[in-house]
């Protein structure tokens, strides 16, 4: 049984099932289970299904259970809860009102504020999914309420969320550092400038979008006095306080990035009750919504995790890398080939999964070409981040879809994403062409 063939059939099957409106989590888990069963059944050469049940069920169980049974990922339900609670306690509305009156002259000012917010949030969380879940809950509904184009209101935050792993701290850089034995602190520094360039790119997309189509971001029409501006700024103090608590706590050595989520939720609850804007009933409702939203994200992530384990069994990833190795490409062509591989895998698999599948073979290959591993790390992370917003499996897009519910269908979000993707490709080419952008800051160490 040719593993690579099974793998390719599985990719096609996932696309087919998704087109048939099968829930994403079920499509990934279902195809991976069947594929895993087939591979185990043929492992000894002859077809022996009776020997496939146990390993299949064991693989499916451990990969989904271990994903959920995680201390580090506890930050995701907590940050999602933060978004819901801050919304119910009017904390987010206040900051949006401030953004609106202060950025009244800027086209798409609130969308820009959202992306900037994503950039700021990236500095406190290491996970793109956490970034998109929190900011998505905070930003997208507010933009929709203000009459923003549905695509802009959702895609801007899905794209902004991808800053989460480029701007330190970053779980992906840590894993890359472990696999390549490169300095994690240097990797963190290397991500800063490319992260800021990506951020600027997203702002440009919004600017051009709204310039060409002013209706996409209705401008504030009333007259705003300086007094109102000051008032709006003062009213947004709880959001500022929360941000100060998180940043001060993490960098001041009071709590870890994972613990920050819990502390911040507790602080938001206290502020909400102290301002008499939060009730027990509203809090409970916020947490119910949190659970539903978190569950649907985790179910997809669990399906994706099972799929990664199945792909590991097929040997598709090493086959691809071996093919590239044997092609003996020139350095620029190799880089292009790597980009294509990561973008293709990124269509289906999650970033960590792609790294564990490819890095063991990819890193020795790029080393023979004399590539700087720190710079290559930034290239890889940027590619993986792009994968979070490409169809058909774009985790960040699903996160936003989970927030906005039936109001904005997934294909509308993806259609908005296209504009952000085009700038992402430009940024990627920039990062690849000018390693100095990544290596400037680490060199100061």
């Amino acid at each position: 049984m040719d593993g690579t063939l099974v793998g390719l059939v599985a990719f096609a099957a996932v696309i087919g099932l998704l087109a048939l409106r099968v829930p994403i989590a079920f499509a990934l888990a279902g195809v991976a289970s069947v594929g895993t069963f087939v591979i185990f059944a043929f492992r000894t050469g002859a077809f022996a299904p009776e020997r496939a049940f146990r390993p299949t069920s064991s693989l499916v169980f451990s990969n989904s259970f271990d994903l959920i049974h995680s201390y580090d990922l506890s930050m995701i339900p907590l940050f999602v809860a933060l978004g819901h609670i801050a919304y119910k306690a009017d904390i987010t509305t206040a900051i949006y009102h401030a953004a609106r009156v202060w950025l009244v002259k800027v086209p798409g000012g609130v969308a820009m504020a959202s992306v900037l917010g994503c950039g700021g949030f990236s500095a406190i969380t290491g996970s793109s999914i956490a970034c998109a879940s929190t900011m998505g809950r905070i930003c997208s509904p507010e933009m929709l309420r203000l009459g923003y184009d549905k695509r802009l209101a959702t895609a801007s935050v899905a794209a902004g969320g991808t800053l989460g792993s480029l701007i330190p701290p970053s779980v992906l850089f840590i894993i890359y550092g472990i696999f390549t034995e490169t300095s994690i602190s240097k990797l963190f520094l290397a991500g800063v400038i490319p992260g800021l360039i990506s951020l600027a790119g997203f702002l440009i997309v919004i600017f051009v979008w709204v310039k060409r189509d002013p209706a996409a971001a209705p401008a504030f029409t009333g007259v705003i006095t300086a007094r109102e501006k000051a008032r709006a700024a003062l009213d947004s103090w709880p959001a500022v306080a929360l941000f100060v608590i998180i940043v001060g706590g993490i960098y001041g050595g009071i709590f870890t990035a994972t613990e920050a989520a819990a502390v911040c939720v507790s602080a938001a609850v206290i502020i909400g009750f102290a301002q008499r804007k939060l009730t027990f009933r509203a809090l409970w409702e916020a947490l119910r919504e949190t659970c539903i939203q978190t569950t649907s994200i985790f179910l997809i992530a669990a399906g994706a995790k099972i799929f990664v384990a199945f792909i590991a069994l097929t040997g598709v990833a090493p086959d691809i890398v071996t093919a590239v190795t044997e092609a003996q490409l020139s350095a620029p062509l190799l880089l292009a080939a790597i980009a294509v591989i990561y973008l293709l895998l990124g269509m289906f698999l999650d970033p960590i999964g792609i790294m564990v599948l490819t890095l063991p073979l990819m890193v020795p290959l790029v080393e023979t070409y004399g590539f700087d591993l720190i710079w290559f790390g930034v290239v890889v992370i940027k590619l993986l981040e792009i994968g979070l917003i490409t169809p058909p499996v774009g985790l960040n897009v699903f996160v936003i879809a989970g927030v906005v519910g039936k109001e904005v269908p997934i294909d509308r979000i993806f259609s908005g994403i296209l504009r952000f993707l085009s700038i992402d490709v430009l940024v990627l080419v920039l990062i690849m062409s000018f390693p100095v952008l990544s290596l400037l800051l680490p060199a100061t160490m």
Partner: protein
Amino acid sequence: MLARLERLLLDLAVIAVIGLGLLITLSVILRATLNSGIPDTVVMVTELMVAAIVLPLAATTAARAHIVVEFVSNYLPWRAQDWLVVFGSAVGLAALAPLIWAGWREALHVIESGSFFFGQLSLPKWPGRVIFLFGISFCWIRLAVMMLGDIAAIRAGRPVIERAPHIPQEEI
């Protein structure tokens, strides 16, 4: 009956989220003020995570909150779309079945062998596994009931998914 049970499980998940939030906050406060802590916080948080994520599965299913791609199916007639919903549930039933069987074996294994987590309290491994099995099984039942209901609705000529007017596609 099912709906009430779902609500109960959802509320238990809410309690789990509150629990892990309080546990972590408390351990931070204890460390910052009294230079002390709660033993095995990490183990307890991971076990609570299972409850927080898995118990709401049935409610999520009932709310039809599983994320789907409708881009292609939107071009099909309503009736066909209704059948696709049934098909999606069928795939879900098939996809969850191995998890239930595996979850059962794993739960049984940790109970029989008395497995526990390394730590100051040597907490047992079974609660998380049992919650996982329970949550997935209940989601499976919910999905099966929903699928049968959807089939009955189609047979009776009732719609399964909302017949919202087609939104004209804006240019990309």
